[in-house]
């Protein structure tokens, strides 16, 4: 089954960079959707069948933590894996994210190899 992926980041450039890397990975990807913040992401999730979310934390309007909280409280989205892609380095905060619904963590700046590794491990291919 082709994967539909949602990239959530307030930087359009970062969304483009992640999209380009995903395009190069050779995965069976269906559509790649984009959102500028958590609020937009929840709208996309409500209207679309998404299999994987890659989300930044620090965004205007709604950040990644709040977005994950809303996703986990919704029957339709609670099982969709979320990979947090952020500059966060605090082990306390990263452990908190993983304990509260994030499936994996990818630190910015990232290399294409790191993106590939985290996606393949998260979706189990």
């Amino acid at each position, binding site marked *: 089954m082709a994967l539909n992926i949602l990239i959530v980041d*307030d*930087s*359009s*450039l*970062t969304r*483009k*960079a992640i999209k*380009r890397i995903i395009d190069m990975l050779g995965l069976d990807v269906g559509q790649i959707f984009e959102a500028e913040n958590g609020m937009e992401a929840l709208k996309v999730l409500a209207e679309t069948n998404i299999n994987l979310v890659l989300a930044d934390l*620090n*965004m*205007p309007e709604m950040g990644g933590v709040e977005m994950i909280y809303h996703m986990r409280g919704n029957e339709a989205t609670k099982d969709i894996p979320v990979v947090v892609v*952020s*500059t*966060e*380095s*605090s*082990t*306390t*905060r990263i452990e908190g994210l993983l304990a509260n619904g994030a499936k994996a963590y990818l*630190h*910015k*700046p*990232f*290399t294409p190899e790191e993106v590939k590794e985290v996606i393949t491990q998260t979706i189990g291919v």
Partner: protein
Amino acid sequence: MIKTDTILTDSLAQALETMAFLTIMPLEEDTAAPEKTVLAEISFAGPNNGTIQILAGLDLCRILAENIGALTEVNDETCYDALKELSNVTCGLLLPMLASSGGDVFDVTVPAVKTGDDSPGWDEFVEQPNSCILNIEGFLVATRLIMKE
């Protein structure tokens, strides 16, 4: 004692190399300062509080955007986005150097950018305390790490 004079340059160098394949080079006397500047700013609060500022010319911002996104054509908004994201990643690399342990938690603002008349001029910016001038592959950039009590 935190060596605040070098950690911003070290963090910026790492961010530039990983994100945009650009390198900080030795300063050369004949390198011209940018005429139209863009200022990116991001603040952090936690065990230490402060603000990071990066002042660059639009030409360098364009190269940043092209390299980060593998793009051939970029508009001004994308150039500003590139400098904002560079400041964001630089801050993320700098904070562990300020932290006393890996568990230290910092709150970070969403990076902001000032352009046009809102951006400070080159001379005005580099005259401020703690400013540092760098040569990024032929383009001058100025940075400041402002630590607060």
